[in-house]
Every structure is written in C-alpha cells, then in structure tokens.
C-alpha cells in the first residue's frame, strides 16, 4: 500500500443533507472514517443513524452533499456502479436481515455464490466465517430456527465473507443479552485490531462504547486472541465517538473527551438522566 493510500479515508461524508417529505433527517453531516478506524455513532432512535449507514452503502441518495468511499465519489453512481463499490463493504443489519428462504450456509455463502466461485472454496470460506462467529454447528439450520443473537452473528458472518475492508454495524447488539452483546463487540474489536478493518458502529448502548473505546485485541504467545484494557501502556486512538442530535453532529472525539464534556444533553444521554 502506498503512503498516499493511507491518507485517503475509508469513508467520508461531506455536508450531507436528507429530508423525508418535510421532515429533516440529516442536516449537514460531515465526518471521515480513516483506514483501520472505528467510528461509533450514538443518538436517539429515529435520529438518522440507519439513514447514514444506508447512504454510505448507496441504498439511498442524499438531497445534497457528497459521499466518498476509498476516495471515490459515489454520490451520483448508478446501481451497477454501486454494485462494484459495495463489494468492498460488509453490512450488518439491525435485525440480521437474513434471507428466510435460505439456510445459514446459503446465507453466509450468498455473496460467493453470486460471484460463481467453486463450491469447495465457498464451503471452506463459509466454515471459516462461521467459526469466527462461533456458530459452525448451526450451518444447516434455517433462519427461523435461530435465536436473535444467533441471527445477528450469522448476519455478521455473511457481512464478513470476502474480507471487506469496510464494515457497517447497525445496532448489532440491540435486544441481546449482555454476554452476547459483549461477544459481538469483541468481534468488532478483533476486526479493527487484527484485520485493520474500518468500521461504523451504530449503537445507543453505553456499554458497547466502553468496550470499543477501552479494549484492544492482541495475539498472545500461545497464538490466542486476548483482550487488554488500555492504560498507561497504550491509549486507543483508532476509535472515536460521534453524537447525533436533530440531524446534526453535536459531538465528535475520543471517549476521554466525551467523559470531560459539560454539555447537559450529552451528559444526560450518557447517564440516562
């Protein structure tokens, strides 16, 4: 990778506006996600978080503003051109959005099947991804036989297949029990620290923010992945928080800066009162 390539951000939104009918959803949003960075987007439900993710994927178009993926302006791209860009992006949907009519195997294999890869390679990749989300046993199940957490993890495996360099998480832990939510955060941390993946992580749970901003993954002497807390040794700089309110970004920075803020709205948001 050239030096120049490192400076080009993975995702960039420049002054993006979007309204539905006469309701302003996004009112001038600009931010960048550098390569290898995780951006956490916080905000009330209905605040436009999913809308931002749908814009990045090109599923909807902004009323004004520009959207760049890997330095490429995708704002005016046609559907076939977007298809090419989307190959670089993995998306984890709010409720999993698994294909009901396909088994877990076929769901995870979907992208590779569409690319027409030989079945041996597909199976190898699918098993690897399901092992990564610790669900190899469920390979032959249908989506309606899975619990919420399992569906979400299959959704993650499906998003990760083909090793996209950008991953978008839309409330991946909503409605899950704390241990499962923790597992999903660990997956995101592993992707960030071990695979150098850039990601946007939408959530409204402060626990997730704490995990993602204070822990990092390393491989120990035995070759196992372990999670360590940041401390004097290391301070995480590859994870930042954005807070969205009424279509505008009212905070952008690290978790340390977030804790120091005096803004009453943000304080209420963080502590729930």
């Amino acid at each position: 990778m050239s030096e120049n390539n490192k400076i080009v951000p993975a995702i960039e939104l420049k002054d993006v506006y979007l309204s539905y009918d006469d309701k302003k959803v996004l009112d001038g949003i600009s931010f960048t996600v550098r390569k290898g960075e995780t951006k956490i987007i916080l905000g009330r439900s209905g605040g436009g978080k999913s809308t931002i993710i749908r814009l990045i994927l090109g599923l909807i178009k902004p009323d004004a503003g520009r959207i760049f993926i890997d330095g490429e302006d995708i704002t005016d791209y046609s559907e076939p051109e977007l298809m090419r860009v989307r190959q670089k992006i993995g998306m984890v949907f709010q409720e999993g959005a698994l294909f009901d009519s396909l088994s877990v195997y076929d769901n995870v294999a979907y992208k590779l099947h569409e690319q027409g890869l030989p079945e041996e390679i597909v199976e190898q990749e699918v098993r690897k991804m399901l092992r990564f989300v610790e669900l190899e046993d469920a390979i032959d199940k249908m989506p309606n036989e899975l619990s919420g957490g399992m569906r979400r993890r299959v959704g993650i495996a499906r998003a990760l297949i083909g090793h996209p360099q950008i991953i978008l998480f839309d409330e991946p832990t909503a409605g899950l029990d704390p241990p499962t939510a923790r597992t999903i955060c660990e997956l995101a941390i592993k992707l960030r620290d071990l695979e150098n993946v850039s990601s946007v992580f939408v959530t409204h749970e402060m626990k997730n923010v704490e995990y993602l901003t204070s822990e990092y993954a390393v491989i120990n002497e035995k070759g196992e992945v372990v999670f360590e807390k940041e401390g004097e040794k290391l301070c995480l700089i590859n994870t930042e928080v954005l807070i969205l309110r009424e279509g505008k970004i009212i905070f952008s920075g690290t978790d340390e800066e977030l804790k120091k803020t005096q803004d009453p709205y943000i304080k209420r948001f963080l502590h729930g009162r």
Partner: protein
Amino acid sequence: MNLLKLFLYELQEITLLTARAFYRLRKKPRYWREAIKQMDTIGVGSLSIIFLTGFFTGAVLVLQSFQILAYYGAQSQVGRMVTFSLLRELGPVLTGLMVAGRIGSAITAELGSMVVSQQIDAMRALGTDPIKKLVAPRIIALLITLPLLTTAANIFGIIGGGITSKYIFNLDTSLFISSVRDGVTTKNLIVSLVKPLFFGLLIGSISCYKGLSTTGGTVGVGNSTTKSVVLTSVAIIITDFFLTRALQNILGIDF
C-alpha cells in the same frame, strides 16, 4: 386531483419497473434457474384451481344456455358456443383473476416482507440487483405459464361443458365434439393466447411493484397485498375490454 396524481405516479413506476426488468436482462447475471422455479410454483401449483375453475365454468355455461339454444332449435351448436366463450373471454379472464388472487398476492406478500425485514436492502448490499433476481424471473414465468394455464382452463371447460350436455341434456357426444371443432378457429386461438400474455405482464409488474414499494412493517405487507390483488383484478377486467376491441379490429370481427 390527488388521486389522479397518485394513479399516474403508480402507472409510471410500474412501467419503469417492468422496463428495467427487461432492459437489465441484456447483461449477466440472468437468473434462469429462479425463473424455472417460479414457473413450477405458478404453473404446476395453479393447475388444480385452474382445473376446477375451468371445468365448472364450462359446465355452467351449458347449464345456462342449453335451453335457450334449444328454443331456437340450435342445441347442436352448444359445443361451439362454449368454445367461443371460453377461448375468447372466460378462459383468459378467469385464469388471470385466479392467478392474480393466488400468485399475485403471494408475490406481493413475499417481496413486501423482504422489504420490511430489510432482506431487499441486504440483497443490494451483497451486490445483487433485486430487479434482476426477483422481478424479472417472476414476470417471465408469468408470461410463459399464463397462456399455458389458460389453454388448460379452456380444455377443462370444454370437457365440463361436454359432460353437462351429455348427462343433463342427453346431447350426443359426437355432436358436441364436432361443434367444438367449429369453435376452435385460428382467430379464437390467437385471442386465447394473446390475452393471457397481457394479463401475465399485468400480474407480474403490479404485484412486484406493490411488494417492493411496501412500507410500514407487517401491517404494510397486508395492505399492499390487498391493494395488489384488487388493482390487478380491476386492471385485467379493464384491459380485457380494450384488448378485445383491439383484437377485433386487428383480426376482423366474425363468428
């Protein structure tokens, strides 16, 4: 005014969707396997209701008209009358309506629930064009199966008519068959194959459009399914009038 605007908007969107479905076929990937699967569901799956509908329609046609024909001394022509009615009108329209109810609703419900559960978005995110993968195969399957189903309905109807005239009105079977032969003209056959092509296109494009434009969760799926069936049925009946007139002009009106 607002209603007119909505109607024109939907007409435009349905036309665009259909045009895109065909236009995008020129480039790979094309999902033929999906189209064949749909033909199985639509064609083979509808055969039993088409059998019942066709059979009893033919039967009741004879029941209603035999005595009128007999009054004019024309009871030997009952086979021809049944064949005319079925091939030109009742076969295509009733098959269209039955398929709209059975398949159109299923297509709208399926695509609608894929929209509200974000499966369509997931498909696009994974690099597949839902118009190519979902819409085009369904429209193609309907275009191929509806003329076949109509032909089946016509045959079952003629059989139903023949059985009624034999067992209720004691008409000689060979007389019935020979008058059916008089009814199977080239023009009638053309009509009975052209109409279902149009109806298949209507069912496919309206039900796919209604499914893909679903909003508002599971309640929305129910709403768009109802609207899809109503709209398709009305569209079939109205189109039938103009289509009949156009075909009369093109083929020339005669017996």
